[in-house]
Protein backbone atom coordinates (compact mmCIF):
# COMPACT_ATOMS: atom_id res chain seq x y z
CA UNK A 1 0.00 0.00 0.00
CA UNK A 2 2.81 2.30 0.93
CA UNK A 3 4.53 1.42 -2.33
CA UNK A 4 1.42 2.29 -4.30
CA UNK A 5 1.16 5.64 -2.49
CA UNK A 6 4.80 6.40 -3.29
CA UNK A 7 4.32 5.55 -6.92
CA UNK A 8 1.30 7.82 -7.10
CA UNK A 9 3.27 10.70 -5.57
CA UNK A 10 6.11 10.19 -8.05
CA UNK A 11 3.66 10.10 -10.94
CA UNK A 12 2.11 13.37 -9.79
CA UNK A 13 5.43 15.17 -9.54
CA UNK A 14 6.54 13.93 -12.96
CA UNK A 15 3.25 15.06 -14.42
CA UNK A 16 3.69 18.50 -12.88
CA UNK A 17 7.21 18.70 -14.25
CA UNK A 18 5.97 17.88 -17.70
CA UNK A 19 3.17 20.42 -17.54
CA UNK A 20 5.27 23.33 -16.30
CA UNK A 21 7.32 25.34 -18.67
CA UNK A 22 10.67 26.61 -17.53
CA UNK A 23 11.55 29.90 -19.14
CA UNK A 24 14.88 31.30 -18.04
CA UNK A 25 14.85 35.06 -17.83
CA UNK A 26 17.89 37.27 -17.33
CA UNK A 27 18.24 40.98 -16.84
CA UNK A 28 18.08 43.09 -19.99
CA UNK A 29 21.56 43.68 -21.35
CA UNK A 30 21.00 47.02 -23.07
CA UNK A 31 24.66 47.78 -23.44
CA UNK A 32 25.65 50.09 -26.23
CA UNK A 33 29.35 50.24 -26.91
CA UNK A 34 29.72 50.58 -30.67
CA UNK A 35 31.30 53.85 -31.78
CA UNK A 36 31.99 54.98 -28.21
CA UNK A 37 35.50 55.46 -26.87
CA UNK A 38 36.38 54.81 -23.29
CA UNK A 39 38.34 57.32 -21.30
CA UNK A 40 41.91 56.41 -20.43
CA UNK A 41 43.32 57.09 -16.92
CA UNK A 42 45.61 59.91 -18.04
CA UNK A 43 43.49 61.15 -20.90
CA UNK A 44 45.98 60.18 -23.58
CA UNK A 45 43.67 58.75 -26.22
CA UNK A 46 43.35 61.16 -29.11
CA UNK A 47 39.96 61.38 -30.81
CA UNK A 48 38.91 63.07 -34.01
CA UNK A 49 35.65 64.98 -34.20
CA UNK A 50 34.01 61.95 -35.77
CA UNK A 51 35.19 59.65 -32.96
CA UNK A 52 34.39 62.13 -30.21
CA UNK A 53 30.69 62.12 -31.07
CA UNK A 54 28.99 58.77 -30.53
CA UNK A 55 26.51 57.40 -33.08
CA UNK A 56 23.43 58.88 -31.44
CA UNK A 57 24.74 62.34 -32.37
CA UNK A 58 24.46 61.56 -36.09
CA UNK A 59 22.28 64.24 -37.67
CA UNK A 60 22.73 66.37 -34.53
CA UNK A 61 26.45 67.03 -34.17
CA UNK A 62 27.86 65.05 -37.08
CA UNK A 63 26.52 63.70 -40.35
CA UNK A 64 26.64 60.39 -42.15
CA UNK A 65 29.76 59.18 -43.92
CA UNK A 66 27.74 57.75 -46.79
CA UNK A 67 25.39 60.05 -48.66
CA UNK A 68 22.97 58.36 -51.03
CA UNK A 69 19.29 57.99 -51.75
CA UNK A 70 19.23 54.21 -51.38
CA UNK A 71 18.35 54.29 -47.72
CA UNK A 72 15.60 56.87 -47.89
CA UNK A 73 12.08 55.51 -47.93
CA UNK A 74 11.38 53.83 -51.25
CA UNK A 75 15.00 54.10 -52.37
CA UNK A 76 16.25 51.52 -54.84
CA UNK A 77 19.12 49.02 -54.55
CA UNK A 78 20.06 49.62 -50.89
CA UNK A 79 21.91 46.32 -50.62
CA UNK A 80 24.10 46.89 -53.66
CA UNK A 81 24.94 50.40 -52.48
CA UNK A 82 25.99 49.16 -49.05
CA UNK A 83 28.23 46.47 -50.51
CA UNK A 84 29.78 48.94 -52.95
CA UNK A 85 30.44 51.37 -50.12
CA UNK A 86 32.20 48.72 -48.08
CA UNK A 87 34.27 47.78 -51.10
CA UNK A 88 35.24 51.40 -51.74
CA UNK A 89 36.23 51.89 -48.11
CA UNK A 90 38.38 48.77 -48.10
CA UNK A 91 40.00 49.63 -51.39
CA UNK A 92 40.78 53.17 -50.29
CA UNK A 93 42.23 52.20 -46.91
CA UNK A 94 44.37 49.58 -48.59
CA UNK A 95 45.53 51.71 -51.49
CA UNK A 96 46.17 54.80 -49.38
CA UNK A 97 47.81 52.76 -46.67
CA UNK A 98 48.17 54.65 -43.36
CA UNK A 99 47.45 57.91 -45.14
CA UNK A 100 43.82 58.60 -44.33
CA UNK A 101 43.41 60.36 -41.02
CA UNK A 102 39.63 60.61 -41.22
CA UNK A 103 36.82 58.31 -42.21
CA UNK A 104 36.22 57.92 -45.89
CA UNK A 105 33.23 59.95 -47.05
CA UNK A 106 31.26 58.55 -49.98
CA UNK A 107 28.77 60.88 -51.60
CA UNK A 108 26.65 59.82 -54.54
CA UNK A 109 25.07 62.26 -56.98
CA UNK A 110 23.13 60.63 -59.79
CA UNK A 111 25.68 58.17 -61.10
CA UNK A 112 28.76 60.02 -59.84
CA UNK A 113 30.52 58.74 -56.74
CA UNK A 114 32.53 61.36 -54.87
CA UNK A 115 35.04 60.05 -52.37
CA UNK A 116 36.32 62.57 -49.87
CA UNK A 117 38.55 62.46 -46.84
CA UNK A 118 41.58 63.85 -45.07
CA UNK A 119 45.02 62.59 -46.09
CA UNK A 120 48.36 63.10 -44.42
CA UNK A 121 51.11 64.87 -46.34
CA UNK A 122 53.66 62.12 -45.68
CA UNK A 123 53.77 61.18 -49.33
CA UNK A 124 55.43 62.97 -52.20
CA UNK A 125 53.09 64.97 -54.41
CA UNK A 126 53.81 62.87 -57.48
CA UNK A 127 52.92 59.67 -55.67
CA UNK A 128 49.75 61.23 -54.36
CA UNK A 129 48.70 62.35 -57.83
CA UNK A 130 49.43 58.85 -59.10
CA UNK A 131 47.30 57.30 -56.36
CA UNK A 132 44.41 59.65 -57.10
CA UNK A 133 44.41 58.69 -60.78
CA UNK A 134 44.93 55.03 -60.00
CA UNK A 135 42.03 54.88 -57.53
CA UNK A 136 39.68 56.84 -59.77
CA UNK A 137 40.49 54.72 -62.79
CA UNK A 138 40.17 51.35 -61.10
CA UNK A 139 37.07 52.19 -59.08
CA UNK A 140 35.28 53.68 -62.06
CA UNK A 141 36.10 50.55 -64.03
CA UNK A 142 34.78 48.25 -61.31
CA UNK A 143 31.72 50.25 -60.38
CA UNK A 144 30.97 51.28 -63.99
CA UNK A 145 30.35 54.92 -63.12
CA UNK A 146 32.47 58.08 -62.81
CA UNK A 147 34.36 58.19 -59.52
CA UNK A 148 35.94 61.41 -58.25
CA UNK A 149 38.43 61.70 -55.43
CA UNK A 150 38.15 65.03 -53.65
CA UNK A 151 40.75 64.86 -50.94
CA UNK A 152 42.07 67.40 -48.52
CA UNK A 153 45.54 67.17 -47.01
CA UNK A 154 46.64 67.90 -43.47
CA UNK A 155 50.21 68.14 -42.27
CA UNK A 156 49.97 65.33 -39.72
CA UNK A 157 47.64 63.28 -37.59
CA UNK A 158 47.79 65.88 -34.83
CA UNK A 159 45.87 68.33 -36.99
CA UNK A 160 42.64 66.36 -36.78
CA UNK A 161 42.68 65.69 -33.03
CA UNK A 162 39.56 67.13 -31.49
CA UNK A 163 40.07 66.08 -27.90
CA UNK A 164 41.80 63.58 -25.63
CA UNK A 165 39.91 61.10 -23.49
Amino acid at each position, binding site marked *: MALAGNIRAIMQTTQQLCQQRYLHVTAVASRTQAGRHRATPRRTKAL*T*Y*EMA*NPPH*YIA*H*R*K*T*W*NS*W*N*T*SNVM*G*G*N*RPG*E*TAVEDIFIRRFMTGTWHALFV*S*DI*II*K*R*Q*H*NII*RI*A*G*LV*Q*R*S*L*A*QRKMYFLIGYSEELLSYW*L*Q*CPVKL*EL*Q*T*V*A*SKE*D*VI*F*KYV
Partner: protein
Amino acid sequence: MSLFIRLCEKNTRIILTKIPNVTASFATTAKPVDIESTEFRVLNLKSKKVENTRKKTRRVEVPPPRANQMAVDQDWPSVWPGPKTFHPAVVPIPIRQGYSLRDQPPPDKYGNTELMKIPNFLHLSPPAVQRHCEALKKFCTEWPVGLETEDKCRKHFPLEVITSDYCYSSPTIREPLSRIVTLRVKLSSLSLNAHAKDKILRLVKDKYSPETDFITITADRCPTKKQNLEYAEYLLTALFHESWRVEDWESEKAEADMEYYDWDKNKSRTNLLTLHAWPNSPTDTDWECIPHVEEYKIAVSDLFNTGEDLHTVNKYKEAVKNVLNLKCEA
Protein backbone atom coordinates in the same frame (compact mmCIF):
# COMPACT_ATOMS: atom_id res chain seq x y z
CA MET B 1 76.72 26.72 -52.31
CA SER B 2 78.97 28.80 -50.18
CA LEU B 3 79.78 31.00 -53.08
CA PHE B 4 76.13 31.62 -53.65
CA ILE B 5 75.57 32.60 -50.02
CA ARG B 6 78.45 34.96 -50.07
CA LEU B 7 77.14 36.68 -53.12
CA CYS B 8 73.81 37.21 -51.49
CA GLU B 9 75.44 38.58 -48.40
CA LYS B 10 77.45 40.99 -50.44
CA ASN B 11 74.45 42.29 -52.23
CA THR B 12 72.48 42.93 -49.08
CA ARG B 13 75.31 44.77 -47.54
CA ILE B 14 75.60 47.02 -50.52
CA ILE B 15 71.92 47.89 -50.34
CA LEU B 16 72.12 48.49 -46.63
CA THR B 17 74.84 51.05 -47.01
CA LYS B 18 72.78 52.84 -49.61
CA ILE B 19 69.53 53.18 -47.65
CA PRO B 20 70.31 53.14 -43.97
CA ASN B 21 67.05 54.78 -42.87
CA VAL B 22 64.56 52.51 -44.53
CA THR B 23 65.95 49.18 -43.50
CA ALA B 24 67.49 50.09 -40.20
CA SER B 25 65.75 47.25 -38.42
CA PHE B 26 67.11 44.67 -40.85
CA ALA B 27 70.60 46.02 -40.43
CA THR B 28 70.60 45.17 -36.72
CA THR B 29 69.72 41.51 -37.26
CA ALA B 30 71.83 40.82 -40.32
CA LYS B 31 75.15 41.17 -38.63
CA PRO B 32 78.05 40.60 -41.01
CA VAL B 33 79.48 37.19 -40.21
CA ASP B 34 82.48 35.84 -41.97
CA ILE B 35 81.16 32.51 -43.13
CA GLU B 36 84.35 31.43 -44.77
CA SER B 37 86.41 31.50 -41.56
CA THR B 38 83.87 29.88 -39.20
CA GLU B 39 81.62 27.09 -40.29
CA PHE B 40 79.17 27.70 -37.49
CA ARG B 41 76.94 30.61 -36.76
CA VAL B 42 77.89 32.68 -33.73
CA LEU B 43 75.36 33.17 -31.00
CA ASN B 44 75.55 36.69 -29.66
CA LEU B 45 74.38 36.63 -26.08
CA LYS B 46 75.15 40.27 -25.54
CA SER B 47 73.67 42.09 -28.44
CA LYS B 48 75.01 45.48 -29.32
CA LYS B 49 72.61 48.25 -28.52
CA VAL B 50 71.49 50.10 -31.60
CA GLU B 51 69.77 53.44 -31.32
CA ASN B 52 66.16 53.31 -32.45
CA THR B 53 66.11 55.17 -35.72
CA ARG B 54 62.50 55.70 -36.67
CA LYS B 55 61.59 56.44 -40.16
CA LYS B 56 61.27 60.18 -40.27
CA THR B 57 58.29 61.55 -42.19
CA ARG B 58 59.45 63.99 -44.72
CA ARG B 59 57.74 67.34 -44.41
CA VAL B 60 56.30 68.34 -47.75
CA GLU B 61 56.57 71.98 -48.59
CA VAL B 62 53.06 73.31 -49.00
CA PRO B 63 52.35 76.74 -50.43
CA PRO B 64 49.97 78.98 -48.44
CA PRO B 65 46.25 78.54 -49.16
CA ARG B 66 45.05 79.98 -52.43
CA ALA B 67 42.22 81.72 -50.61
CA ASN B 68 44.71 84.16 -49.00
CA GLN B 69 45.74 85.58 -52.35
CA MET B 70 42.30 85.90 -53.90
CA ALA B 71 41.15 89.32 -55.02
CA VAL B 72 38.02 90.70 -53.42
CA ASP B 73 36.33 91.34 -56.77
CA GLN B 74 37.28 88.06 -58.38
CA ASP B 75 34.88 86.06 -60.54
CA TRP B 76 33.63 83.41 -58.12
CA PRO B 77 31.72 81.18 -60.62
CA SER B 78 34.96 80.58 -62.51
CA VAL B 79 36.78 79.66 -59.26
CA TRP B 80 34.06 77.18 -58.27
CA PRO B 81 32.33 76.20 -61.53
CA GLY B 82 30.57 72.99 -60.54
CA PRO B 83 29.49 70.90 -57.58
CA LYS B 84 32.51 69.84 -55.55
CA THR B 85 33.45 68.81 -52.05
CA PHE B 86 34.35 71.70 -49.80
CA HIS B 87 38.03 72.66 -49.86
CA PRO B 88 39.30 75.17 -47.28
CA ALA B 89 42.14 76.48 -49.40
CA VAL B 90 39.77 77.54 -52.17
CA VAL B 91 36.92 79.07 -50.20
CA PRO B 92 37.96 82.48 -48.83
CA ILE B 93 35.36 82.53 -46.07
CA PRO B 94 36.24 81.87 -42.40
CA ILE B 95 33.61 79.15 -41.93
CA ARG B 96 33.37 77.00 -38.85
CA GLN B 97 31.25 73.92 -38.37
CA GLY B 98 30.79 71.46 -35.59
CA TYR B 99 29.79 71.18 -31.98
CA SER B 100 32.47 72.83 -29.91
CA LEU B 101 33.90 71.82 -26.60
CA ARG B 102 33.37 74.07 -23.63
CA ASP B 103 35.04 77.50 -23.88
CA GLN B 104 36.25 76.77 -27.37
CA PRO B 105 35.09 77.95 -30.77
CA PRO B 106 33.63 75.39 -33.21
CA PRO B 107 36.18 73.56 -35.39
CA ASP B 108 37.49 75.73 -38.22
CA LYS B 109 37.51 74.91 -41.92
CA TYR B 110 40.96 73.26 -42.10
CA GLY B 111 40.77 69.50 -41.70
CA ASN B 112 37.06 69.65 -40.96
CA THR B 113 35.31 66.53 -42.22
CA GLU B 114 31.86 67.85 -41.37
CA LEU B 115 32.23 70.56 -44.00
CA MET B 116 33.31 67.97 -46.54
CA LYS B 117 30.35 65.70 -45.88
CA ILE B 118 27.54 68.19 -46.33
CA PRO B 119 26.42 69.19 -49.83
CA ASN B 120 27.36 72.78 -50.57
CA PHE B 121 25.86 75.29 -52.97
CA LEU B 122 29.03 77.24 -53.67
CA HIS B 123 28.54 76.64 -57.40
CA LEU B 124 25.03 78.12 -57.25
CA SER B 125 25.86 81.70 -56.34
CA PRO B 126 23.40 84.28 -57.77
CA PRO B 127 25.75 85.35 -60.62
CA ALA B 128 26.24 81.69 -61.58
CA VAL B 129 22.49 81.09 -61.67
CA GLN B 130 22.03 84.22 -63.74
CA ARG B 131 24.63 83.02 -66.22
CA HIS B 132 22.90 79.64 -66.45
CA CYS B 133 19.62 81.37 -67.23
CA GLU B 134 21.27 83.58 -69.85
CA ALA B 135 22.79 80.53 -71.49
CA LEU B 136 19.46 78.70 -71.50
CA LYS B 137 17.54 81.65 -72.92
CA LYS B 138 18.46 80.90 -76.51
CA PHE B 139 16.72 77.54 -76.27
CA CYS B 140 13.44 79.05 -75.03
CA THR B 141 10.49 79.73 -77.32
CA GLU B 142 7.72 82.33 -77.09
CA TRP B 143 4.71 81.49 -74.95
CA PRO B 144 1.85 80.62 -77.34
CA VAL B 145 -0.65 83.38 -78.00
CA GLY B 146 -4.09 82.67 -76.60
CA LEU B 147 -2.93 80.60 -73.65
CA GLU B 148 -2.27 83.45 -71.22
CA THR B 149 -4.42 82.23 -68.35
CA GLU B 150 -5.03 78.88 -66.69
CA ASP B 151 -8.65 78.85 -67.83
CA LYS B 152 -7.67 79.30 -71.46
CA CYS B 153 -5.12 76.49 -71.21
CA ARG B 154 -7.74 74.22 -69.68
CA LYS B 155 -10.26 75.12 -72.37
CA HIS B 156 -7.93 74.38 -75.29
CA PHE B 157 -6.12 71.44 -73.71
CA PRO B 158 -8.65 69.69 -71.49
CA LEU B 159 -6.68 66.45 -71.21
CA GLU B 160 -4.15 66.21 -68.37
CA VAL B 161 -1.45 63.52 -68.32
CA ILE B 162 0.24 63.00 -64.96
CA THR B 163 3.44 60.96 -64.81
CA SER B 164 6.33 60.78 -62.34
CA ASP B 165 10.05 60.67 -62.99
CA TYR B 166 12.41 59.51 -60.28
CA CYS B 167 15.92 60.73 -59.74
CA TYR B 168 18.17 58.58 -57.61
CA SER B 169 21.82 58.76 -56.65
CA SER B 170 22.61 55.40 -58.14
CA PRO B 171 23.90 54.10 -61.46
CA THR B 172 20.51 52.74 -62.48
CA ILE B 173 17.89 54.92 -64.16
CA ARG B 174 15.13 52.32 -63.94
CA GLU B 175 12.30 52.84 -61.48
CA PRO B 176 9.19 50.66 -61.68
CA LEU B 177 6.96 53.39 -60.26
CA SER B 178 7.63 55.68 -63.21
CA ARG B 179 5.49 53.49 -65.49
CA ILE B 180 2.23 54.72 -63.89
CA VAL B 181 0.27 57.15 -66.06
CA THR B 182 -2.77 59.09 -64.88
CA LEU B 183 -5.12 60.69 -67.37
CA ARG B 184 -7.50 63.42 -66.17
CA VAL B 185 -10.27 65.10 -68.09
CA LYS B 186 -13.25 67.19 -67.04
CA LEU B 187 -16.62 65.63 -67.83
CA SER B 188 -17.94 69.02 -68.91
CA SER B 189 -15.20 69.34 -71.54
CA LEU B 190 -16.41 66.20 -73.32
CA SER B 191 -19.26 66.80 -75.76
CA LEU B 192 -21.96 64.50 -74.43
CA ASN B 193 -25.75 64.59 -74.43
CA ALA B 194 -27.89 63.51 -71.49
CA HIS B 195 -27.94 59.86 -72.53
CA ALA B 196 -24.20 59.68 -73.21
CA LYS B 197 -23.38 61.47 -69.98
CA ASP B 198 -25.52 59.05 -68.03
CA LYS B 199 -23.90 56.11 -69.74
CA ILE B 200 -20.31 57.31 -69.26
CA LEU B 201 -20.95 57.88 -65.56
CA ARG B 202 -22.23 54.32 -65.28
CA LEU B 203 -19.15 53.03 -67.08
CA VAL B 204 -16.48 54.95 -65.10
CA LYS B 205 -18.23 54.46 -61.74
CA ASP B 206 -15.96 55.71 -58.92
CA LYS B 207 -13.37 57.13 -61.31
CA TYR B 208 -15.55 60.20 -61.60
CA SER B 209 -15.39 62.72 -58.82
CA PRO B 210 -18.57 64.86 -58.60
CA GLU B 211 -16.80 67.53 -56.50
CA THR B 212 -14.13 68.33 -59.08
CA ASP B 213 -15.98 67.03 -62.20
CA PHE B 214 -12.86 65.07 -63.19
CA ILE B 215 -12.72 61.62 -64.77
CA THR B 216 -9.40 60.04 -63.70
CA ILE B 217 -7.99 57.02 -65.50
CA THR B 218 -4.85 55.42 -64.05
CA ALA B 219 -2.94 52.82 -66.05
CA ASP B 220 -0.12 50.76 -64.52
CA ARG B 221 -0.51 47.32 -66.01
CA CYS B 222 2.09 47.68 -68.77
CA PRO B 223 5.83 47.73 -68.04
CA THR B 224 6.64 51.06 -69.72
CA LYS B 225 5.27 54.56 -69.50
CA LYS B 226 4.55 54.80 -73.22
CA GLN B 227 2.50 51.63 -73.26
CA ASN B 228 0.51 52.77 -70.25
CA LEU B 229 -0.16 56.16 -71.80
CA GLU B 230 -1.38 54.53 -75.00
CA TYR B 231 -3.57 52.16 -73.01
CA ALA B 232 -5.10 55.04 -71.01
CA GLU B 233 -5.78 56.96 -74.23
CA TYR B 234 -7.41 53.89 -75.71
CA LEU B 235 -9.59 53.51 -72.62
CA LEU B 236 -10.76 57.12 -72.82
CA THR B 237 -11.53 56.82 -76.53
CA ALA B 238 -13.44 53.59 -75.99
CA LEU B 239 -15.40 55.14 -73.12
CA PHE B 240 -16.37 58.16 -75.19
CA HIS B 241 -17.59 56.19 -78.18
CA GLU B 242 -19.28 53.56 -76.08
CA SER B 243 -21.23 56.21 -74.20
CA TRP B 244 -22.51 57.70 -77.49
CA ARG B 245 -23.69 54.35 -78.79
CA VAL B 246 -27.41 53.62 -78.31
CA GLU B 247 -28.23 49.94 -78.24
CA ASP B 248 -31.55 48.55 -79.47
CA TRP B 249 -32.61 47.31 -76.09
CA GLU B 250 -32.21 50.74 -74.56
CA SER B 251 -35.51 51.84 -76.17
CA GLU B 252 -37.31 49.05 -74.33
CA LYS B 253 -36.67 50.70 -71.01
CA ALA B 254 -39.94 50.93 -69.11
CA GLU B 255 -40.89 52.97 -66.06
CA ALA B 256 -40.06 50.04 -63.81
CA ASP B 257 -36.49 49.95 -65.14
CA MET B 258 -35.82 53.58 -64.32
CA GLU B 259 -33.14 54.00 -61.72
CA TYR B 260 -34.37 57.48 -60.75
CA TYR B 261 -37.73 59.23 -60.69
CA ASP B 262 -38.37 61.24 -63.82
CA TRP B 263 -41.39 63.50 -63.31
CA ASP B 264 -41.83 64.08 -67.05
CA LYS B 265 -42.48 60.40 -67.70
CA ASN B 266 -44.61 59.66 -64.67
CA LYS B 267 -48.23 59.57 -63.63
CA SER B 268 -47.90 62.66 -61.48
CA ARG B 269 -47.48 64.85 -64.55
CA THR B 270 -50.59 63.52 -66.33
CA ASN B 271 -52.57 63.87 -63.11
CA LEU B 272 -51.56 67.50 -62.77
CA LEU B 273 -52.37 68.23 -66.40
CA THR B 274 -55.77 66.57 -66.11
CA LEU B 275 -56.52 68.49 -62.97
CA HIS B 276 -55.49 71.75 -64.53
CA ALA B 277 -57.54 71.26 -67.72
CA TRP B 278 -60.64 69.97 -65.89
CA PRO B 279 -63.27 69.40 -67.21
CA ASN B 280 -61.65 69.44 -70.66
CA SER B 281 -59.29 66.75 -71.80
CA PRO B 282 -55.64 67.65 -71.08
CA THR B 283 -53.31 68.99 -73.77
CA ASP B 284 -49.61 68.23 -73.57
CA THR B 285 -48.32 71.46 -75.02
CA ASP B 286 -48.76 74.21 -72.51
CA TRP B 287 -47.98 72.49 -69.22
CA GLU B 288 -45.19 74.96 -68.48
CA CYS B 289 -47.67 77.83 -68.22
CA ILE B 290 -49.29 76.27 -65.15
CA PRO B 291 -48.31 78.45 -62.19
CA HIS B 292 -45.75 76.94 -59.76
CA VAL B 293 -45.39 73.80 -61.86
CA GLU B 294 -41.58 73.93 -61.88
CA GLU B 295 -41.51 74.10 -58.09
CA TYR B 296 -43.93 71.19 -57.89
CA LYS B 297 -41.87 69.13 -60.32
CA ILE B 298 -38.66 69.63 -58.31
CA ALA B 299 -40.42 68.90 -55.04
CA VAL B 300 -41.93 65.62 -56.27
CA SER B 301 -38.63 64.50 -57.88
CA ASP B 302 -36.73 65.28 -54.68
CA LEU B 303 -39.22 63.38 -52.60
CA PHE B 304 -38.67 60.26 -54.68
CA ASN B 305 -35.00 60.58 -55.50
CA THR B 306 -33.52 61.68 -52.17
CA GLY B 307 -36.11 60.03 -49.96
CA GLU B 308 -38.58 61.30 -47.42
CA ASP B 309 -37.24 63.56 -44.75
CA LEU B 310 -38.47 66.68 -43.02
CA HIS B 311 -37.05 69.03 -45.60
CA THR B 312 -38.38 67.30 -48.73
CA VAL B 313 -41.80 66.68 -47.19
CA ASN B 314 -42.11 70.34 -46.17
CA LYS B 315 -41.01 71.38 -49.65
CA TYR B 316 -43.61 69.09 -51.17
CA LYS B 317 -46.29 70.52 -48.88
CA GLU B 318 -45.48 74.10 -49.92
CA ALA B 319 -45.39 73.10 -53.60
CA VAL B 320 -48.80 71.40 -53.41
CA LYS B 321 -50.27 74.40 -51.62
CA ASN B 322 -48.88 76.70 -54.29
CA VAL B 323 -49.90 74.64 -57.31
CA LEU B 324 -53.46 74.11 -56.02
CA ASN B 325 -53.65 77.75 -55.00
CA LEU B 326 -54.52 76.83 -51.41
CA LYS B 327 -52.16 79.29 -49.82
CA CYS B 328 -54.02 81.74 -47.62
CA GLU B 329 -52.87 85.28 -48.11
CA ALA B 330 -51.09 86.47 -45.02
